[in-house]
């Protein structure tokens, strides 16, 4: 890791080193049986929407051939209805909870009695049931619909079903891709503290597979964050660069952002012209003189 020596030196001065240059997780802090009070009503009410459909339509099918033909479509429809019902009722309960306590950004205590922490857990758990159901269905547009419904600014052009994405305090641009197994978190538990900060993913950004994006990161337009890399707290990734590493650093300019797919170079094979290309040779500066001298001598001979 970078800055390791500097941090060790700082600790000698008896000042606590509180910079956040590493990531932990945004999994829920404590699991409680009290969450069942939220789960059971959502499950029941979501199931009742399916039951209304079943009561209304299934007894009317008297011919069994028609019923058999209709069955797969109706099962698919019932699954969709169940998910939409779950999302709808969880949204209703979410509105009630947000009326009691409004979600805020900032640094809070992550202990048993702390108000902000408890409400954060309830919010996460509430959304979990419907998002879990959606992630286990092959319906990516429903996933985006649920995210929009829960108050995340997302367009239908962006895609994040294959990743873990927190459902609050995230702004998506257009055509954002979040890779497989990536973790985009807007909240993080650090020892005794809970940190919540908004994450911005601007237009055309690509987040690679298995990366973790920490709260407060801002990813500019056309940037690519490579696979297996992490961003630190409050990091700003500039426009049209490729970032990679642990923590993420600038790798090179994202030229794929400027030159779009129409610009693949085409070469006429029949009338091909050979170009001389000068390469930089990867040698120490002392030895480079030798090479140049040799070349000059050869030129001189000619």
């Amino acid at each position, binding site marked *: 890791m970078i800055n390791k020596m500097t941090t060790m030196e700082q600790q000698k001065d008896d000042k606590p080193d509180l910079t956040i240059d590493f990531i932990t997780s945004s999994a829920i802090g404590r699991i409680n049986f009290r969450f069942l009070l939220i789960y059971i009503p959502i499950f029941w009410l979501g199931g009742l929407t399916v039951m209304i459909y079943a009561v209304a339509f299934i007894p009317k099918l008297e011919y069994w051939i028609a019923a058999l033909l209709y069955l797969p479509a109706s099962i698919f429809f019932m699954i969709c209805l169940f998910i939409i019902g779950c999302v709808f009722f969880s949204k209703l309960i979410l509105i009630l909870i947000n009326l009691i306590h409004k979600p805020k950004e900032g640094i809070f205590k992550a202990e048993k009695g702390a108000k902000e922490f408890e409400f954060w857990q309830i919010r996460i758990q509430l959304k979990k049931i419907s998002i879990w159901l959606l*992630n286990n269905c092959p319906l990516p547009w429903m996933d985006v619909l649920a995210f929009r419904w829960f108050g995340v600014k997302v367009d239908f052009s962006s895609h994040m079903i294959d990743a873990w994405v927190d459902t609050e305090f995230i702004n998506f641009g257009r*055509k954002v891709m979040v890779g497989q197994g990536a973790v985009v978190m807007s909240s993080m538990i650090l020892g005794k503290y809970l940190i919540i900060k908004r994450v911005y993913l601007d237009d055309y950004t690509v987040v690679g597979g298995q990366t973790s994006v920490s709260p407060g990161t801002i990813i500019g337009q056309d940037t690519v964050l490579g696979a297996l890399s992490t961003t630190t707290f409050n990091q700003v990734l500039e426009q049209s660069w490729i970032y990679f590493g642990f923590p993420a650093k600038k790798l090179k300019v994202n030229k794929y952002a400027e030159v779009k797919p129409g610009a693949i170079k085409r070469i006429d094979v029949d009338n091909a012209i050979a170009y001389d290309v000068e390469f930089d040779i990867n040698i120490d500066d002392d030895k480079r003189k030798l090479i140049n001298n040799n070349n000059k001598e050869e030129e001189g001979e000619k």
Partner: protein
Amino acid sequence: MSVPCSLRVGPFTSNLLLKKRYIAIYIAIIWLSFIPVLTEFWFYWQLLWNNTNALHFYLFLPLFGFLAYVSLVFSGLFVAKVFLIVINVIHPPKEGIFERTHSDKDYRYWNIRLIVKKYPVWIAHKFPFPFLDNICFKVFGVKTKISNSLFEGWVDTEFIEFGKNIIVGQASIIQSSVVIGNLLIVKKVKIKDNVKIGAHSIVMPGTFIGENCILAAHSLTTVDQRLEKNWIYVGIPAEKYKLNEFNKDGLEELIELNIDVDGIREKYEQLYDRGERTHVGYLQRKKEKEEKIEQEKQRWQKIPT
């Protein structure tokens, strides 16, 4: 939010001794676990369909479905535990390093134990209720509290001790057994109170993590590593990074002071100058969207001459 398909890491210590005859164990466990659920449904049907109005039957069916799933998990657990007790009486589980051959008795029984445990743990993890997972781990001999959140990661089901207030991050793996070359290593993992394990990190068998430790994301511990208490560990393999000062009270303001807010704000303003969008009408929003789509078309279809 929830764990998607690509994050749901399978068992790293996969049983490599898959024989056809083990299907018999699976079939027995699944069959026996479904019997109580079906009897439950029969009673429910008798009670509400025949005796009262059919509407009541439909009204309570979703609630019954939920109860049926939970009872399926519990019955599967019960049957698997009975199987496990019988297997452990024949050959008690041991720690140590074993040879990975069919003739080695420890290796064979390790495989059978994993096969028996797999069904209930799988079925508990296929439901968005984290308690079911924790109950499964507890029954199979992992020392945990119910309040620990182990749902997001993947945790081995034997030779693990957890303390209080532990968080296991998304897609992280805690394993007490690993296959290296021709050897199987089984060693106890001990994780003390208030330990936070980050996302995508892996804890190998035999590690001891002290109190108030933080293992950051994307880090890996080696076999038999000891992490001292009150430290933050980062890297592959995990090394001491700095003292964990985040465990003291009343540091909220100090942490906020440490963030260079003005610098971040400047950087942010260089990237974005639009700021928070004020409320606009539907028609204007539609117009903006169409303009943006046209811009995109021009970007993507431009062919350089």
